[in-house]
């Protein structure tokens, strides 16, 4: 299989425009004859479903939560980037494009990224028109801040709840279409399988989480906007229900899974406090602007009261190792260094599983310098959140932080039209592999999800539908649907019939530990090989010894979780395989074998300047690797350095 990204040629600045001009259109009167299934109502899904509905297509939208408004996009705090250059500080579409490609460590498609930067400005207009209450200046105009170490202030924000406000904007657009009758919403409905007929995605199988009923849905196109797979690590900043099921099932039906090993770790999360921990909470990175990161110089001091340790017994390791960037080094560098000092035994805080995994983020000096009230004005809500979770007061004793899994850059492979290699299967938002390469810049995921949903997918889907035409006679009685539904049912019955000894979560935790240790912040060949041995063992035990009580009738949350964990148990293996195969370090993927003398990630552009897309071949069979070469005509490849 050769992977064709179908990028338009010509100058990058006009590529998207000319591509759109060449697209086929569907006559307005015919649009309602097309059925589009949109799975996911996060930023990407809700925006896409609403826009397709406005255009007049018949849309069915699905999400597993009880309301479309609860998709995990709601949790994004920091902000959304856009090349508006309202601050007149030298930003431009080209600069946002350049920064994104560079930030992604040159592992994304130039043309996709350029389009993203172009569309970013329309997103802000759209959101403001919907009533998204972005922060404003006294003059009534929009405010911006600089985010994640960017040199320009291009981030739009709504206090610490930008994702919430943007999602509620998209949700309101979606609600408007529900009212207009163009979109039918199916909440508490989980997609369990994709139906591919004659090489085209033609439908999905879902389970109604309220009744247990399995249903088949026929469509002319299927859109997956089901978010990221960070929960393969069990502990992450993702919501509890985030899963890989939809994309993984599509992968099993022939869609290629690209770069699964690219995951992003966020350095400032609240550490694990005990074995019962169910998720991790992110604290905005902006804390590092004023907080100083340190651990005791000596492991013996790990349990001492931090304020009793004088400066000469503290190791401000980021300031020591990176004198010019100090505490503001990029996410991955900050994260890896935290891991290193904790592995040296100098971690602080609660001991969990025999290790202390936390470092101090200290505001003592900042409070002395600018005063408590200034610090309160800057971070009051974050400090409050910290206190709520830990019961400690960060004004008096330093915060404890530790990195956590936060975002997954990998996802289903898509071309420039956001269509996967399976015809008619479109993949949007965090679920696709697209624009962030090996590392995502802060405040760019919201931008990408909305760009995909509002502005890119609607025209490309229309084009696809215009080409395949309407009038399909396909119904759910087709063998393809019956078989997929049968399989889904068999799997549910199997899960329910095991009645072993262990609860579902215990397997998820076990898998998560393996993934975090071997395929987390830094990875080695040996570790990955070990994980590839361990995961099938856990999976085998799961299928023999899990206990899923109850039956497939009504609400059964154990069954929901069991299905998701079963998929993670297969998917984890794919991730490790991809991480093993990519023997370079790039972006969020750090292979210990590939580093500079200073311990920086070392890319290997000669051998790995490609997207790795995997083709499913069976659960116990190794998948096939396809490579899409990445060409850089506009951006110059350089090696990062933060010394």
């Amino acid at each position, binding site marked *: 299989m050769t992977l064709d990204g179908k990028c338009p040629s010509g100058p990058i600045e006009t590529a998207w425009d000319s591509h759109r001009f060449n697209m086929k259109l569907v006559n307005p009167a015919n649009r309602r004859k097309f059925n589009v299934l949109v799975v996911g109502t996060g930023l990407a899904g809700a925006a896409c479903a609403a826009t397709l509905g406005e255009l007049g297509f018949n849309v069915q939208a699905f999400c597993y939560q009880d309301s*479309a408004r*609860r998709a995990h996009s709601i949790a994004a705090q920091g902000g959304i980037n856009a090349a508006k250059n309202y601050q007149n500080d030298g930003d431009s579409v080209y600069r946002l494009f350049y920064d994104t490609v560079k930030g992604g460590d040159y592992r994304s498609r130039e043309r996709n990224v350029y389009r993203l930067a172009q569309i970013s400005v329309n997103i802000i207009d759209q959101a403001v028109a919907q009533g998204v209450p972005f922060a404003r200046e006294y003059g009534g105009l929009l405010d911006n801040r600089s985010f994640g170490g960017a040199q320009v202030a291009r981030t739009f924000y709504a206090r610490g709840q930008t994702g919430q406000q943007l999602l509620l904007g998209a*949700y309101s657009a979606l*609600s408007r279409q529900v009212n207009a009758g163009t979109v039918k919403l199916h909440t508490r409905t989980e997609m369990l399988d994709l139906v591919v007929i004659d090489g085209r995605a033609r439908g999905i199988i879902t389970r109604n989480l309220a009744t247990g009923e399995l249903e088949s849905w026929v469509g002319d196109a299927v859109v997956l906007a089901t978010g990221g797979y960070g929960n393969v690590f069990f502990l992450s900043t993702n919501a509890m229900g985030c899963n890989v099921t939809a994309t993984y099932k599509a992968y099993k039906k022939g869609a290629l899974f690209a770069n699964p090993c690219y995951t992003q770790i966020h350095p400032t999360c609240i550490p694990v406090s005990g074995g019962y921990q169910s998720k991790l909470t992110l604290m905005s990175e902006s804390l590092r602007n004023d907080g100083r990161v340190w651990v005791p110089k000596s492991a013996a001091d790990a349990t001492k009261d931090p304020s009793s340790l004088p400066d000469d017994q503290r190791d401000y390791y980021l300031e020591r190792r990176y004198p010019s960037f100090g505490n503001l080094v990029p996410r991955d560098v900050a994260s890896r260094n935290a891991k290193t000092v904790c592995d040296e035994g100098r971690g602080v805080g609660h001991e969990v599983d025999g290790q202390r995994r936390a470092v101090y983020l200290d505001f003592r000096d900042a409070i002395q310098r600018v005063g408590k009230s200034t610090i309160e004005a800057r971070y009051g809500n974050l400090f409050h959140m910290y206190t709520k979770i830990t019961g400690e007061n960060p004004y008096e004793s330093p915060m404890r932080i530790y990195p956590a899994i936060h975002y997954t850059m990998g996802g289903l492979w898509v071309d420039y039209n956001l269509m996967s290699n399976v015809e008619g299967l479109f993949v949007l938002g965090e679920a696709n592999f697209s624009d962030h390469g090996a590392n995502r810049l802060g405040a760019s995921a919201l931008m990408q999800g909305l760009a995909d949903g509002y502005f890119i997918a609607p025209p490309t889907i229309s084009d696809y539908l215009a080409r395949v035409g309407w009038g399909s006679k396909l119904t759910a009685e087709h063998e393809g649907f019956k078989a997929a539904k049968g399989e889904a049912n068999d799997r549910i019955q199997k899960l329910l019939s095991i009645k072993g000894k262990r609860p579902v979560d215990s397997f998820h935790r076990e898998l998560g530990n393996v993934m975090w240790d071997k395929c987390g912040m830094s990875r080695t060949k040996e570790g990955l090989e070990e994980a590839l041995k361990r995961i099938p063992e856990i999976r085998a035990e799961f299928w023999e010894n899990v206990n899923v009580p109850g039956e497939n009738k009504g609400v059964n949350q154990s069954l929901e979780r069991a299905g998701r964990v079963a998929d993670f148990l297969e998917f984890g293996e794919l991730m490790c395989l991809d991480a093993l195969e990519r023997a370079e370090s790039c972006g969020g993927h750090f292979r210990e074998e590939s580093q500079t003398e200073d311990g920086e990630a070392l890319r290997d552009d000669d051998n790995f300047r490609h997207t790795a897309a995997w083709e499913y071949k069976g659960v116990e069979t190794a998948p096939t690797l396809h490579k899409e070469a990445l060409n850089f005509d506009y951006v110059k490849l350089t090696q990062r350095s933060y010394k």
Partner: protein
Amino acid sequence: MKITLNVWRQSAPQAAGSFVKYEVDGVNADMSMLEMLDVLNDRLESKGEAPIAFDHDCREGICGACGFMINGVAHGPEKEITVCQTHMRSFKDGDELTLEPWRAMAFPVMRDLMVDRSAFDRIIQAGGYVSVRTGSAPEANATPVMKEHADLAFEAAACIGCGACVAACPNAAAMLFTSAKVSHLGLLPQGEPERDKRAMDMVAQMDKEGFGHCTNHGECEAVCPKGISVNFIARMNRDLLSATLRSTR
């Protein structure tokens, strides 16, 4: 610590429910309320018993999925917090906690502590939006918005749709929720053209769902995890009354 729970168990929407007592030992003060239930649920699952069903997702107080009554208070004893952010350090060893689902005609119980809040979605669908087609938006900075209004709109927009306001209100009113959206959009110039229609349509839907009226008890504001103010209810009353008098409908 050891905690005794009195949990409402109800196997299906139509089934009769009752309180069941559980003793949970080994509870750690740093656990969240939901993590404590996870621990209990793992124990129940290992025994092949049905775990306690409750809605939850983000577990950081923003998605609005979680919520139940803890000892008669929606989202439990701490202020401006959801149950997922309530930690066991708020309780003492030996405490007995009664966990009960939201109760309202418009929020039927689905199972245990889980209720159906789709009525909220229908209220939004009735008019909780600005009718702007994708691509038709004017330049964002073309319309300046008074900062005070933008900030107030944000405060209203912070609602997470959890339903605690309904649960706590002695009349099971959805006034706080509905008024938050009516106010958020009504305060912004972008929402102005549809302001009257929105207020009328959303209130009509709210009434149709069977929520109660507002006696101005203020219970809703007290339990709201986002501290949404009852001032917005007054604003919605004003909007509705003036819309009714002013509009041609």
